[in-house]
C-alpha cells in the first residue's frame, strides 16, 4: 500500500506510540483488503462501549491507549454504554458494573471522544455531508450513513474507528469506492408497508435473503426517517448489509438504477413479514416493554407521550434515547408525561447492550426486529408489537 512521507513518519512513531499503533492497524487492514492508499476521514463514530461486551480486557486496552497519548484528530462520537450514566441504580445495575462502565467512558473522554452514548449520532447533529468519507461503527449507523445520508463508511469496529479518530485516516476499500456501491439484487415489496414495524420486518428479511449484498428496493412506499432507521438496523443485524438503495427514497437510488440490468429480483410479501415475526417470538409471560432500538427520535418520544397519557405503565415501559433527544423531549414536556404514566426514560444505553439478565428481566417485548433478534440471542422469550400495542400491553 502506498503511504505518503507524512504517513510513513506516523508509522515510524514520530507522532507518538498511539498514532503508530493506530497506523499499524489501518495499514494491516488496508493490506488485507488490498487498498491502494489511505484517505482522510471527516469524523468517527466509535462502538464497543458497553462494559458488558468489553469486560476488563477491553477496558484495559482503552485505558492503555489513552495513557499512550491517543487523542482524537477528527470529531468522534460514542455508541451506547451498558447503563444510564446517572440513573443506573434505578435500572438495577450493580455498582461493580457501573464502576467498570465509568472507567470505559473516562478512557474515551480523555482521548477527546464526545461521550454521546448513542447509536443514532445522526439524530443529534453528527450528520456528515453527502459523499464525504467517515469511519463509523455500529451497524445501524453505518447503514444510515451510507444509505440515507450518502456519507461513506465500511462496517468498522471499535479499534478501527478509534484508530481513524486518532489519525484522521482510513484505508480506501469497500463501500468507499463507487464500484462497490452498486446494487447486487432487486427487492420488490409486494405488500403495503403500513407501520414502522413493517419496515423493520422488511429489513430483517432482506438481511436473511441477501447476506452482504446491496439491495435495491422497488415499491417500498415513502418511509419516514424512523422507518428507514429501523429498516437499516434490521438488515444490518440479520445479514451484513451496510448500504441499501430505495427507489424514489434514498440519495443514490437514481445512480444505482443504472446498474439494474441482469440483476435477480426477490419479492417480499405479507406472508414473509408474518413468517419473519413468527420466527422470533414466543409470547413471554412477563416481558419488559421497550422502545428505542435504535434510540428514539424526538417524534417517537412525542408519539409515546401521546399514547401513554392517562394510562399506568407500572414501570414496565422502558424508553431508550440519546442525551441530545432527551433534552429536547424534556423541554417539549414528553418526558414528564411518560414518567407521570410511570413509564421509564433512560439515556446512554439500550436493550441490546445493557446487562438485562443481571437486571432481573424475564422477557422482552419490542417494536424492533434488531432488538428482538438480540433478545433471542441473549436467551429471552420475546414478543414483537407496534408502538401502540406495546403501550397497550404494558398498561396496568
Amino acid at each position, binding site marked *: 500500500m502506498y503511504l505518503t512521507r507524512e504517513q510513513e513518519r506516523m508509522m515510524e512513531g514520530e507522532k507518538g506510540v498511539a498514532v503508530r*499503533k493506530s497506523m*499499524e*492497524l489501518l495499514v*494491516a*487492514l488496508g*493490506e*488485507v*483488503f488490498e487498498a491502494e492508499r489511505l484517505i482522510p476521514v471527516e469524523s468517527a463514530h466509535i*462502538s*464497543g462501549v458497553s462494559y458488558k*461486551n*468489553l*469486560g*476488563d*480486557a*477491553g477496558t*484495559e*486496552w482503552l485505558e492503555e491507549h489513552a495513557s499512550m497519548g491517543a487523542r482524537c484528530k477528527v470529531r468522534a462520537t460514542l455508541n451506547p454504554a451498558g447503563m444510564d450514566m446517572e440513573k443506573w441504580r434505578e435500572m438495577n445495575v450493580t455498582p461493580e458494573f457501573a464502576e467498570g462502565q465509568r472507567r470505559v467512558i473516562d478512557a474515551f473522554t480523555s482521548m477527546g471522544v464526545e461521550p454521546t452514548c448513542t447509536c443514532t449520532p445522526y439524530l443529534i447533529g453528527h450528520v456528515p455531508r453527502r459523499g464525504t468519507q467517515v469511519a463509523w*461503527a455500529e451497524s445501524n449507523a453505518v447503514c444510515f450513513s451510507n444509505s440515507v445520508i450518502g456519507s461513506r463508511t465500511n462496517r468498522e*469496529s*471499535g*479499534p*478501527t474507528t478509534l484508530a481513524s479518530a486518532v489519525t484522521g485516516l482510513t484505508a480506501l476499500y469497500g463501500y468507499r469506492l463507487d464500484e462497490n456501491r452498486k446494487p447486487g439484487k432487486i427487492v420488490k415489496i409486494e405488500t403495503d408497508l403500513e407501520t414502522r414495524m413493517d419496515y423493520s420486518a422488511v429489513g430483517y428479511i432482506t438481511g436473511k435473503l441477501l447476506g452482504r449484498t446491496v439491495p435495491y428496493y422497488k415499491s417500498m412506499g415513502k418511509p419516514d426517517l424512523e422507518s428507514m432507521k429501523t429498516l437499516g438496523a434490521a438488515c444490518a443485524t440479520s445479514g451484513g448489509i451496510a448500504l441499501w438503495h430505495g427507489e424514489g427514497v434514498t440519495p443514490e437510488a437514481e445512480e444505482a438504477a443504472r446498474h439494474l440490468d441482469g440483476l435477480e429480483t426477490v419479492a417480499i410479501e405479507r406472508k414473509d413479514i408474518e413468517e419473519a415475526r413468527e420466527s422470533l417470538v414466543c409470547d413471554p409471560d412477563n416481558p419488559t416493554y421497550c422502545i428505542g432500538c435504535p434510540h428514539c427520535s424526538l417524534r417517537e418520544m412525542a408519539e409515546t407521550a401521546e399514547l401513554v397519557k392517562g394510562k399506568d405503565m407500572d414501570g414496565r415501559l422502558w424508553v431508550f434515547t440519546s442525551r441530545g433527544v432527551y433534552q429536547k423531549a424534556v423541554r417539549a414536556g414528553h418526558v414528564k408525561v411518560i414518567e407521570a404514566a410511570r413509564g421509564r426514560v433512560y439515556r446512554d444505553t439500550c436493550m441490546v447492550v445493557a446487562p438485562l439478565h443481571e437486571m432481573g428481566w424475564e422477557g422482552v417485548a419490542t417494536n424492533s426486529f434488531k432488538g428482538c433478534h438480540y433478545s433471542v440471542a441473549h436467551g429471552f422469550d420475546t414478543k414483537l408489537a407496534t408502538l401502540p400495542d406495546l403501550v397497550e400491553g404494558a398498561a396496568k
Partner: protein
Amino acid sequence: MILKGRKVMGGYAEGEALVSAEPVSFYGGVDPVTGYVTEPGHCCCGENITGKVFVFPTGKGSTVGSYVIYRMKKLGTAPAAIINVETEAILATGCVISDVPLVDKLDRDPLKVIKNGMKVKVNADEGVVEVID
C-alpha cells in the same frame, strides 16, 4: 517444508500446530480464560489453542472477537501465531492490537499440508512459514 504468504501482523513465533477445518469465532467460540474452543458442534470443540500455531480458514462472528484475542494475550492463553487461508477484519484487528503474528494467503493450502501436532515456525515479518514433520 517452506510456505510463503502474506504478513498481516508481523512477529516471530513457533509452536505445535492445531488445525481447524472450520472458521473460528473468538467471541463466544473460545473461552479466553482457559484457551479452550467451546463452540458446540465445532470441529475443534474441546481443543486448547494456548501457545499453538492455530491454523484455520478465516474468522467469523462479532467484532467483539478482536478484544477477546487481546484478553487472551493478557491472560497468557493466546495462540502463539495464527495462520489463515484468507483472513478478515475482526481477526486482523485482534492480532494487530494484541501482537499475535498472523499470516495468510500461503502458496499451498495450510489446511492440507499442516497436520495437528507438527512443529511450525512462523516468521510473519517475512510471511514465511516453516513446517517441520
